[in-house]
């Protein structure tokens, strides 16, 4: 059985806008329309899209705090908005910009409250606490009030809080937002390990594409409330028409180089950027440039997932 099944789900909001002194006209906004996907147990899926694409709306429906206006969805065999209380035992949620911890209390107290909220058996609670304290470096923080924690520390605290009751699925909404490079990589390592060891299903929404590249075997791209891509990273590159870039430093500034099979995308003094299809070999291109110009130095940039995503976003027309 799939962990998450979403079939033809849509969600629209009715907004009332003032259109005169007293008059208000209602108009409907489709936050998500015709969304369908399934996620298998143990998968780690990146869920990305520009602001306002419908990511948070989807997550809210998957936690049961928002009812879809159409379609069906189940998580761990439960219908979220109907069986929200049972589902809460099976899912963990981290909203990167909010905290599930109690602001004025030492970190430890939040966990003790969560133990009671989720009725975690004492033995289970102790093992989980021991594991997370070690893996997330929480030992020093347990007696510190949450309001005194740094953003990175708080995020680690929040991740532990979301996993304390052994959920089957965890939704991470921008877990690395605002973190420095070291904290990010530690967090990713922890998620990788937890996914591997506990078979945890992870849905990760992020704007940091390195999160996706390093964690997710599968990516779903949503734009204007519709799923515009669902597949692995390689397929994403193919769909996005990934290109590599040859960067050449010439001995002196010249006009943009014209060579068939490559496009000069940028010129900056003696340095030029030539984009070419990712699957083509760079050798003939280098040879062709060298034949016509004096090359001082060169390097090749691999396709950037960011570019790929941008291409997908800009190539999908807004519906209607």
């Amino acid at each position: 059985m799939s962990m998450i099944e979403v079939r033809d789900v849509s969600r629209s909001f009715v907004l009332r806008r003032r259109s005169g002194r007293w008059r208000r006209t209602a108009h409907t906004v489709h936050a998500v329309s015709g969304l369908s996907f399934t996620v298998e147990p143990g998968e780690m899926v990146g869920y990305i899209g520009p602001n306002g694409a419908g990511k948070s709306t989807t997550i809210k429906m998957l936690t049961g705090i928002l009812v879809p206006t159409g379609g069906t969805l189940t998580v761990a065999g439960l219908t979220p908005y109907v069986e929200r209380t049972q589902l809460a035992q099976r899912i963990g949620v981290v909203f990167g910009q909010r905290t599930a911890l109690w602001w004025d209390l030492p970190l430890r107290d939040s966990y003790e409250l969560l133990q009671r909220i989720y009725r975690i058996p004492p033995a289970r609670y102790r093992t989980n606490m021991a594991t997370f304290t070690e893996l997330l470096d929480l030992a020093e923080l347990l007696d510190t009030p949450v309001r005194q924690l740094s953003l990175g520390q708080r995020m680690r605290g929040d991740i532990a809080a979301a996993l304390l009751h052994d959920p089957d699925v965890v939704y991470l909404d921008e877990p690395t937002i605002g973190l420095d490079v070291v904290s990010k990589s530690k967090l990713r390592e922890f998620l990788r390990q937890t996914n591997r060891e506990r078979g945890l299903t992870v849905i990760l929404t992020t704007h940091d594409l390195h999160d996706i590249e390093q964690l997710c075997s599968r990516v779903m791209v949503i734009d204007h409330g519709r799923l515009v891509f669902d597949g692995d990273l390689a397929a994403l590159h193919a769909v996005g028409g990934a290109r590599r870039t040859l960067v050449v430093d010439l001995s002196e500034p010249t006009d943009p180089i014209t060579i068939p099979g490559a496009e000069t995308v940028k010129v900056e003094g003696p340095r030029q950027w030539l984009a070419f299809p990712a699957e083509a070999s760079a050798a003939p291109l280098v040879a062709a440039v060298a034949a016509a110009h004096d090359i001082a130095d060169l390097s090749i940039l691999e396709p950037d997932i960011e570019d790929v995503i941008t291409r997908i976003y800009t190539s999908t027309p807004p519906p209607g």
Partner: protein
Amino acid sequence: MRATGSLWFAVAQRSFRRYSTYRAATLAGIFTNCVFGLIFCFVYIAVWNQNPDAGGYDRTDAITYVWLGQAMIMTVAVWNGGATDDLAARIKSGDVAVDLYRPVNLLGWYLASDLGRALFHLLTRGVAPTVFGAVIFDLRYPASTLTWVQFAVSAVLAVTVSFGVRMLVSASAFWLLDDTGIKNLAAVLAMFFSGLVVPLVLFPGWTRDLASVLPWASYLQVPADIWLGKHVGGDAWMALGFQALWTLVLLAFCHGVLQLANRKVVVQGG
């Protein structure tokens, strides 16, 4: 059931601890209560010198009433504040989403949290100014152990009634997003109808009858009258029953409102 009880106890305990971390604020607050208590005492003494049994109180009753009033201000949170303010803030910031996906009853959670807070405020902002008042003035004390017990129950019910009122005020933020206006209105009503400024027993004619059946009478007038021995025997039980009834009505109302709010957020996506 036992597990839930242990959760509520844990919540109340942590709420108590949370307020206890702000020591300077507590000391400053106690000082303020003492100063205002003194000012009120001088005013009341002037009144009762003119009319020695105004509202059926003698001078000692009146002075005792002042210190009970100072003790109850923060305990029942007359001017709002307490756990219910947290809810309003969380609605405004959207953090209430975190509360909603937890398998926990929102009303029970905030009630437990507010009771923990009230106990802290009773022990500090309640007891300290009263001791100060007792040092300076002759006060009246409950006449029997039974009265002490009845007063304790009445004080708890005072908190639950005020919690019900404050919860409704805070829950209005689900629709209004900002509850400041309603909060100010509620604070004025509570200050007036609780008898904090002028005891309800001094209200003239029908206004006294009206004020004594409104929920705010539970905040101060009822517990004070029990303390002063104005309600004895069956009368005292009736007074407690009055508070219990308002508690039930308000909590039922809160439950309904939260249910509606939940529907609004979940179904309409507000």
